[in-house]
């Protein structure tokens, strides 16, 4: 690991980035709350909110957590995690969507997940 003084020059640049990111995060927070007052239809509201959150989250990850300049191994681990994260989020709900993809010719009886079996 190089000494701390070598990094001093880099750090000044980084600090400027941190302040910029902070301001961006504040703005985006106000934006997302403001949009929520519009009471958009659910699907649109979810999409917009998640989009803004993803941008905010990416800023935190890339700049505060230095992910933008991380090593390949870390990227590999996180990519793997992301793949399984998506599977975990998507598959259970898809499993209970009736006739997903394939047209059901026989109506499943009272099978909405809320009531359970």
């Amino acid at each position: 690991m190089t000494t701390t003084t070598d990094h001093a020059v880099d750090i000044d640049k980084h600090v400027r980035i941190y302040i910029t990111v902070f301001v961006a995060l504040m703005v985006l927070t106000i934006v997302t709350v403001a949009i929520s007052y519009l009471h958009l239809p659910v699907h649109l509201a979810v999409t917009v909110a998640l989009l803004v959150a993803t941008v905010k989250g990416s800023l935190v990850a890339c700049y505060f957590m230095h992910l933008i300049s991380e090593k390949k191994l870390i990227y590999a681990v996180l990519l793997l995690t992301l793949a399984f994260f998506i599977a975990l989020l998507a598959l259970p709900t898809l499993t209970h969507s009736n006739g997903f993809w394939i047209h059901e010719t026989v109506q499943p009886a009272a099978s909405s997940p809320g009531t359970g079996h």
Partner: protein
Amino acid sequence: MSEQATVAHKRHVAHEAHETIGFWRKYVFSTDHKVIGIQYAITGLLFLLFGFSLMMLMRWQLAYPETALPLLGRLLGDTRMPGGTMLPEFYNELGAMHGTIMVFLGVVPLAVGGFGNFVVPLQIGAPDMAFPKLNMLSYWSFYLGGVVMLASFFVPGGAAQSGWTSYVPLAIIASSGQTWWLIGMIFLITSSLLGAINFITTIIQIRAKGLSFMRFPFFVWAQLVTAFLLLLAFPPLEAAAVMQLMDRVAGTSFFLPTGLMISGQTLQVAGSGNPLLWQHLFWFLAHPEVYVLILPAMGIVAEIIANNTRKPLWGYRSMVYSLVFLGFMSFIVWAHHMFMTGMGTAMAAFFQTTTMIISIPSVVILTALVISLWGGSIRFNTPMLFALGFLPMFGIGGLTGLPLGLNITDIPLHDTYYVIGHFHYVVAPGTIFALFAGVYYWFPKATGRRMNETLGKIHFIGSFICMNVVFMPMFILGMAGVSRRLFDGGAAYAFAGPYLHWNVVSSWGAWILALFQIPFIFNFFWSIWKGERVGDNPWEATTIEWSAPSPPPHGNFAVIPEAHRGPYEYSVPGAKKDFTPQFEA
């Protein structure tokens, strides 16, 4: 000669340095991976024995339903076995805890915590794990989890009794033992997560110079992939356990549907929950968990086969790629445990497809191991016998999994004894045989002594025969339609009548299997003090752990070794010996 004197001197110096650490820091709260590994191994073996004992009790009830168990029956008291006859609730406790203990307190701690901890740093030429203190924390978290699980037998209502799968809503209305189960699981999951972080970091960072990834012993690859499975698959179960705890203790309805009736009364909860959510989160872990059970075993078998055929493993590269692919696929097959829950046809097709695909890497690995035998100079010592026994047993286990993974054939087989036969073949004469093999194989490294071969062979032959006697009949019972978890083994159903005698066969197989473990237990402890003394490399093996003294001192190597070649350079043409160790210049 002088090299040995140097090693002896270094060992002496290391030993002296250790004198200043008290007994507690050296043997109980040690941060040395070898001590921790042995702690895990012994605790794991004890839990395996205990879990086995629970099953032997169950098998009495299955063979002779509602008959008093002589002697032992009355000792268990009126809340469990009044007059020596088992209560259904107690049968369910035994069933749930047998599964839980074998999987989470027995096999994984032994395979990963025990063998992984002891062998991996030595095999990669490391002085210890990357995070020794975290390692110690892992063990004691596991230990606490074990204590909580054992203690649960003594709370009012007894231990968890809703299956090792703790399906809801039953588990939510169950007695307080279930709460203990959930808390115990949180400790165990924490232990595994911390351990996984340690293994991955250690294998990647602390490996010796020259030890590139494709020069790893297959055992190291197996532990690396296993660690990733533990790291990423366990947290959802932890989240689910918290939610089930909330449902049980805080009155939430994560898993409770609206209008649920218990004994004619509607449950007074908010409702609107989803019982299948539990199943998804549970199986998201539990499927990768079964690969956690098998991968280290495959690793052990691979090491022992290479060593005892005196030739390199056939298809090492394919085996490694298969291992990695298997690990990845294991995360997207889980709902094949849920084919009967009413899922849409598309998702059923998806999970059926991924399940069929995942059988391919398993077959590749098994085939490569079998082909590795071809043309070898096979030494039939005890580790090798168990390793060889593993192959057809895992084969049967794997093949019988296929109809379960196809949703059409799963319909008649789901939740029957067929399933029990399938998974026990993989875990019992599968993984546990590999673990036995590993004990016999690495015992000399840990103790500087060999275990007795005759007792080992008796252990093997008896266990091999009895395992098949116990589990083969279960396929017959299952195909006849006898459900698992029936406290009378199917006796209440007329259709099961012609097949019930198989229960008796299985039970006697289990009890005799227990007798054949006695030579092993005796051998294990007797050999620690009286076993034949051996040098550093009694098996004439090629991997780095055999360059360390037996047993290795704190820090393992006087001089950090370097890897100069692949892990299985046996019978190299032109070489002086029939093995060229990885660590030799």
